[in-house]
């Protein structure tokens, strides 16, 4: 009785995916989209398999992923440190909040050519761009979370004789964690985006380099294969983060109640 009702909802996203694949296949086979622009799903899959067998895709994926993960960690740590310092020190907030918000209005990918000139070719500039792209979402959500702490809890610790550092560690950080995670989840997407953009501008290797090289020779199967791998990385990373959040923030019954600040 409860069987199909239980697994059908879990299957729903895959039905959408299947329908999209069908539409893709129809577009190439029935409506005759030129294979030079849109290869059919089967050819794409074969291209992906060839790339995987030669190990090229794994190598490129690893390069992109390393830059994205390293930049993400650096950006998130910087952002969180900044938010914690500003939450503890009002003058610092007054000095930095407006400049940081102005910084957010710059599309970070526009800095890619500049970073290439400053830092040079290859991974280090990818890491830098990813870090820049990840800073703001983590920063602003952390600050919101750290500020929204229950004042009574803080008072309770103060009355018990606790210092500001202990309050930060025992009350502010755990209270802010759900909001910090919102920022971390938003930044995952930005991290991949920034890593690929930097590779398009000045990459040595990586999925972005692969996409650009293949487009230059109109090798659409390779382009689509690389995009599929990027999508898989993005989806997996987001899911892993959600899993981590559920494990760490076990007391949260309604994560949807946490509003994203961006």
């Amino acid at each position, binding site marked *: 009785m409860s069987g199909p009702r239980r697994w059908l909802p879990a299957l729903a996203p895959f039905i959408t995916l299947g329908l999209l694949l069908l539409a893709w296949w129809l577009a190439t086979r029935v409506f005759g989209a030129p294979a030079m622009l849109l290869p059919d799903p089967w050819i794409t899959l074969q291209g992906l398999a060839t790339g995987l067998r030669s190990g090229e895709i794994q190598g490129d994926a690893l390069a992109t992923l390393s830059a994205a993960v390293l930049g993400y960690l650096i950006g998130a740590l910087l952002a969180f440190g900044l938010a914690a310092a500003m939450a503890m020190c009002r003058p610092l907030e007054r000095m930095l909040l407006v400049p940081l918000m102005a910084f957010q209005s710059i599309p970070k990918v526009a800095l890619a050519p500049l970073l290439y000139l400053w830092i040079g070719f290859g991974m280090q500039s990818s890491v830098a761009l990813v870090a820049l792209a990840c800073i703001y979402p983590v920063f602003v959500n952390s600050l919101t979370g750290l500020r929204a702490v229950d004042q009574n809890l803080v008072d309770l610790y103060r009355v*018990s004789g606790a210092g500001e550092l202990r309050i930060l560690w*025992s009350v502010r950080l755990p209270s802010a964690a759900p909001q910090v995670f919102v920022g971390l989840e938003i930044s995952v997407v930005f991290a991949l985006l920034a890593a690929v953009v930097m590779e398009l501008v000045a990459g040595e290797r990586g999925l972005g380099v692969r996409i650009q090289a293949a487009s230059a020779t109109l090798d659409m199967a390779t382009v689509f294969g690389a995009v599929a791998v990027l999508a898989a990385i993005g989806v997996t990373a987001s899911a892993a983060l959600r899993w981590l959040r559920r494990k760490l923030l*076990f007391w949260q019954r309604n994560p949807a109640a946490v509003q994203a600040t961006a």
Partner: protein
Amino acid sequence: MQQASEGSAQAALSIRKLDLAYASSRGPVQALLQLDFDVEAGAFVSVLGPSGCGKSTLLRLACGLLRPSGGSIALAGRPIEGPRPEVGIVFQQPTLLPWKNVLDNVLVPVRARGADVGVARLRALELLRMVKLEAFASHYPHELSGGMQQRVGIARALVHDPALLLMDEPFAALDAMTRENMMVELQRIWRGTGKSVLFITHSIPEAVFLSDRVVVMSPRPGRVVQTLAIDLPRPRNIETMGSPRFAALTNELRQVFARMEPA
């Protein structure tokens, strides 16, 4: 006169000509004006007043988070100049840490001070027994009802053995039935521990049921309008609330509020 000064030396909390003014965006605000009363050692004193009478401000003064702008407020004869370990606080909301279980929540005041938890753990378990939650020591707050959470809050306020318990409308967020049970429970706990209590409320029956003395405050600027000794015999129970004396006392307090100008 002699007797009065002796009495104040023994008081758990003594408040003398206490003023509190602060600057707001609309100019200076006189929150408390010439407040004057005591909480004798072991006594249960309620501060009763409408919202905006500075009850919560008084509580922040008593726990050392605010300084008076005039007069004095002293714990066991020593002026309050900052947070002191002799007070325990119960808030209107349970204010528990959702990521800590019940026992660890009760231990918060001990850990916050950086003190050793060893002996305190036994005391915390004993307090959980007293608030009838010994079976829930390893549960998390979200697994408890509002009344149970508030009882954890009471146990937490007592864990470091304070002489004075400050309670800020602790039952205001509970439903009516839970509230009456909690009043009876609090009386039992108070009689069992012998603590002095400063209980802040805007409920007349709650104040009459629990207190030895009720201090009525007026809205801003908060000052003492009347003090009423409650001579109902203890232990009081649900039936007490139906007694003629209870009705007479609550009525007397209602009259005081009726005479007060609207805020």
